């Protein structure tokens, strides 16, 4: 046993240290060097989730249910994993609109509804008071256990530790929670203290765990093996006692939602958040904290069960009794301090959060809407605000104490905590639904909350009252009015799950059902639609967007005077001055009293007195036009239209860019063609000038010298005739090519036998070949398919090819060979020579206009248009013309005509 004075002394010393930390945190904040602007502190402050329930209750739960204590910590782990999806949004919204409590948040979403704000506040107070009682009960019963006193004895209330603890905590909370009225409602000193307490409780619990596991027992193996042998404990090592799978799942969901909805969690995670980037580290650090504080729970529980005979000592107190019975006095004291820190941190934050809600969302709206109050109220209301909050703190703590005195003895710690959890998750549909669903309405939220709360009351709270002896047990055992279907713990005969799951299921079903059904009953009003868009789109839109929904007239002086009453004149002027600077205006008086300014003033005021009260007060000094639903929808539509337009614009500009690209390509191609045309023109004129020059030269010679002898004259005239012929040929070919290229050429298609045709050409072109002293050889099959082509054109091609070949054969032993072959799908003609051949790089060039390979004499003799024309002709009939050559071994010009050209007569002949 430890003496009472030692424990009280240590506790007092601990509280003094806590005061010191909080004071230091506040000092640093005032000096502008925030202690809590740090992701580690933020994550640790979230650990206010771990209360005396975790510290003592988990072990108690593990002693009967094995791993059944875990879902309460797995739920929040899952929520932190998606914190950017939920918590980040809540933080953004709250920062933009200076929302300071969960009641404010919900009320603000649904058009700053007073009714909703007060409902949420009431539900929170009713739901949380048992939870606060749980903390008082834990500390006072552990104190009693250590000192041997019996806690909660009626009669000697003034000796009750719980009462004194409640009073000390009230003092602490008042000092650090309501030190001054802040427009952001942040309490740096308190957060510093909470983070400190989180470290203390973790270290204390881990110390107990290590000592129990490694000193009292001989490590994990010893503990678990001993437990496996013990008859009652073996089941704790399996999932046999954790309850049904549905219960496990429900508890995970319940704790995940409660982690978001508990007023104290909202306070530390959202309101006290300094920088939203801190959320990132908390994403893993907070789950890590939970893991660490849970790892020794089962070992301590097993240790207690092994050491103490059954039912002698409450498993909830194993954390203290185990080290105490083994003689570790200092450790026991440390463990007690750890439990104290767990309890006090919860009570402090929860009380601050609740008192803010009671003041801003319950009392102030009532007072401010009261005409008589407005008349006698003092001009400066800051003092009154602080007074209300301090009063609320004392009242809430005393309520907790009262609940503990009257009902707290009947229940294990965990059961009380779960009742509170089930109460606060009633906020979830309205809050989460409101953040993601535009269609949610105020009436829907009110109906859902009311229905859920009523079911919670009936299925969970009233039965707990009955078990405490305040109500007759009859209605629990046989249903209200004796109707069995209405038995509160097995509604409509649903009895497969435990009481908590049962209550969670029915209350959530009623809550969500009513919320959705009533929301869908009527379209949202103008104010609701405006707020909905502001909340749902917070991650997309800049927060000032809310000012769009305001129209009216205001005077700056009125706003200044109003705000000064709640925040103090100096602070208001400073805030307005910085606002003016951000607007590029030098003096406050020059500011334009527009929607933005009114919104700024309202947000500033909301930080101090809540959005509901702020709305009431602002409305009293400015003249506002009420926007109809159509106008709000128009504004929203405008915004979405602007977005749509900008998307359209982007698409158009993309299309334009593509079009420009195409145009540029087309332009380049045109320029290229233009260049080709110019080249062609200059080539043609050049080619025309050559024969003209020689014609003119010889004509002049004949004209100038009449005495030229006859033989000479004949030779000159021969040249002139030859050159004229060449000129004619050239002009004809140019015209020909132009016609073919432009598609105006005339084609006279007849049935042509290629053998016949080649023989004909050989006759006419044979002269040319012979004139070069070369041989023309024909290699023809006995018969080929008749083709339907233009005979004259083909003669032109073949003549051209044979003529070319003849020009390039060597002076002696020249040979031109024409080969005709029919393949499966084409008829092919090869014209081979044994000239010098064509180098590979020139093979493509010779098909271009006016490009010629130099003949054997070195001087080009053709017009340079023969091959291009031939290729055009062959391609016109769907065939192709190409050259293959190895320099030194002659060249082969070949063309193929597809057999699809076969004349109809030939086709029928073949088919038969």
């Amino acid at each position, binding site marked *: 046993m430890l003496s009472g004075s030692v424990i009280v002394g240590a506790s007092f010393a601990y509280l003094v240290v806590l005061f010191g930390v909080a004071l230091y945190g506040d000092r640093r904040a005032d000096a502008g060097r925030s202690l809590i602007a740090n992701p580690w502190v933020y994550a640790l402050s979230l650990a206010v989730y771990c209360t005396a329930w975790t510290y003592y209750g988990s072990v108690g739960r593990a002693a009967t249910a094995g*791993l059944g204590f*875990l*879902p309460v910590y*797995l739920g929040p*782990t*899952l929520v*932190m*994993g*998606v914190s*950017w*999806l939920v918590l980040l949004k809540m933080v953004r919204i709250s920062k933009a609109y200076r929302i300071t409590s969960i009641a404010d948040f919900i009320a603000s979403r649904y058009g700053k509804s007073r009714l909703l704000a007060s409902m949420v506040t009431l539900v929170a107070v009713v739901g949380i008071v048992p939870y606060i009682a749980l903390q008082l009960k834990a500390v006072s019963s552990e104190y009693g256990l250590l000192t041997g006193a019996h806690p909660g004895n009626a009669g000697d209330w003034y000796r009750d530790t719980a009462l004194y603890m409640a009073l000390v905590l009230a003092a602490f909370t008042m000092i650090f929670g309501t030190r001054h009225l802040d427009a952001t409602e942040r309490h740096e000193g308190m957060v510093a203290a909470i983070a400190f307490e989180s470290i203390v409780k973790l270290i204390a619990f881990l110390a107990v765990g290590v000592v129990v596991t490694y000193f009292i027992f001989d490590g*994990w*193996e*010893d*503990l*678990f*093996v001993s437990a*496996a042998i013990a008859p009652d404990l073996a089941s704790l*090592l*399996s*999932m046999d006692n954790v309850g049904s*799978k549905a219960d*496990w*799942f429900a508890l*995970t969901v319940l704790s995940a939602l409660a982690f978001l909805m508990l007023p104290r969690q909202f306070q530390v995670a959202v309101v006290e958040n300094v920088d939203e980037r801190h959320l*990132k*580290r908390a*994403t*893993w*650090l907070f*789950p*890590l904290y939970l*893991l660490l504080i849970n*790892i020794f729970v*089962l070992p301590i529980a097993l240790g207690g069960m092994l050491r103490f005979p059954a039912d002698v000592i409450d498993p909830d107190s194993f954390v203290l009794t185990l080290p105490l019975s083994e003689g570790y006095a200092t450790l026991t004291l440390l463990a007690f301090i750890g439990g104290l820190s767990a309890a006090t941190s919860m009570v402090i934050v929860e009380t601050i959060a609740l008192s803010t809600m009671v003041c801003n969302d319950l009392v102030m709206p009532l007072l401010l809407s009261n005409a008589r109050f407005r008349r006698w109220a003092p001009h400066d209301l800051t003092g009154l605000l602080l007074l209300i909050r301090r009063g609320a703190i004392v009242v809430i703590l005393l309520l907790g104490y009262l609940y503990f005195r009257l009902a707290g003895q009947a229940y294990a710690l965990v059961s009380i905590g779960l009742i509170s959890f089930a109460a606060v998750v009633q906020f979830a549909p309205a809050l989460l639904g409101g953040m993601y669903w535009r269609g949610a309405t105020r009436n829907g939220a009110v109906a859902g909350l009311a229905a859920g709360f009523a079911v919670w009351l009936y299925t969970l709270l009233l039965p707990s009252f009955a078990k405490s002896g305040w109500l007759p047990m009859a209605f629990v055992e046989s249903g209200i009015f004796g109707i069995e279907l209405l038995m509160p713990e097995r509604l409509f005969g649903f009895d497969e799950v435990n009481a908590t799951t049962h209550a969670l299921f029915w209350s959530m079903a009623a809550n969500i059902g009513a919320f959705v059904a009533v929301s869908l009953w009527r379209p949202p009003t103008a104010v609701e639609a405006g707020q909905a868009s502001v909340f749902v789109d917070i991650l997309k839109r800049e927060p000032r967007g809310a000012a769009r929904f305001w129209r009216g007239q205001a005077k700056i002086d009125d706003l200044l005077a109003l705000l000064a009453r709640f925040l103090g004149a100096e602070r208001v002027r400073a805030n307005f001055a910085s606002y003016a600077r951000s607007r590029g205006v030098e003096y406050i008086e020059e500011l334009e009293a527009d929607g933005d300014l009114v919104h700024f003033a309202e947000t500033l005021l909301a930080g101090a007195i809540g959005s509901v009260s702020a709305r009431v007060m602002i409305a009293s000094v400015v003249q506002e036009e009420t926007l109809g639903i159509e106008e709000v929808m128009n504004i929203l539509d405008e915004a979405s239209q602007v977005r749509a337009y900008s998307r359209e614009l982007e698409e158009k500009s993309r299309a334009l860019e593509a079009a420009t690209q195409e145009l540029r390509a087309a332009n380049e191609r045109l320029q290229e063609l233009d260049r080709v045309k110019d080249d062609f023109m200059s080539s043609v004129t050049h080619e025309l000038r050559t024969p003209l020059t020689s014609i003119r030269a010889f004509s002049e010679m004949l004209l100038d010298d009449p005495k030229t002898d006859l033989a000479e004259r004949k030779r000159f005239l021969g040249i002139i005739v030859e050159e004229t012929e060449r000129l004619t040929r050239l002009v004809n070919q140019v015209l020909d090519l132009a016609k073919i290229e432009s598609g105006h050429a005339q084609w006279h298609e007849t049935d042509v036998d290629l053998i016949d045709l080649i023989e004909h050409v050989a006759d006419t072109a044979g002269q040319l070949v012979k004139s070069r002293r070369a041989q023309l050889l024909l290699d023809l099959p006995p018969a080929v398919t008749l083709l339907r082509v233009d005979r004259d054109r083909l003669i032109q091609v073949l003549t051209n090819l044979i003529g070319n070949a003849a020009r390039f054969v060597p002076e002696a032993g020249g040979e031109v060979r024409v080969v005709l072959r029919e393949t499966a799908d084409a008829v092919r003609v090869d014209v081979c020579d044994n000239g010098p051949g064509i180098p590979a790089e020139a093979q493509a060039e010779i098909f271009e206009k006016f490009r010629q390979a130099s003949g054997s004499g070195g001087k080009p003799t053709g017009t340079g248009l023969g091959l291009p024309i031939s290729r055009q002709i062959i391609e016109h009939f769907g065939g192709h013309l190409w050259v293959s050559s190895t320099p030194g071994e002659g060249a082969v010009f070949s063309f193929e005509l597809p057999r699809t050209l076969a004349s109809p007569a030939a086709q029928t002949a073949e088919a038969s």
Partner: protein
Amino acid sequence: MRKALARQRLVACTLFAALAFNAPLLWLFDTAVAVFGVPLVFLYVFGIWAAVIAVLAWVVEVGHR
């Protein structure tokens, strides 16, 4: 882009944890097997928990860079 990837990773990790921490997966490990005396289901829960925390930490501290 990077941010969106990190967020998808976080969601996937959370979904996995939700699956692993509930029936039927959790109950599959409810056997008489013990490792150094520690029941398998205990190791499973805390092992998965630690792994999930490690992945979350990696994603938010390292993965997005």
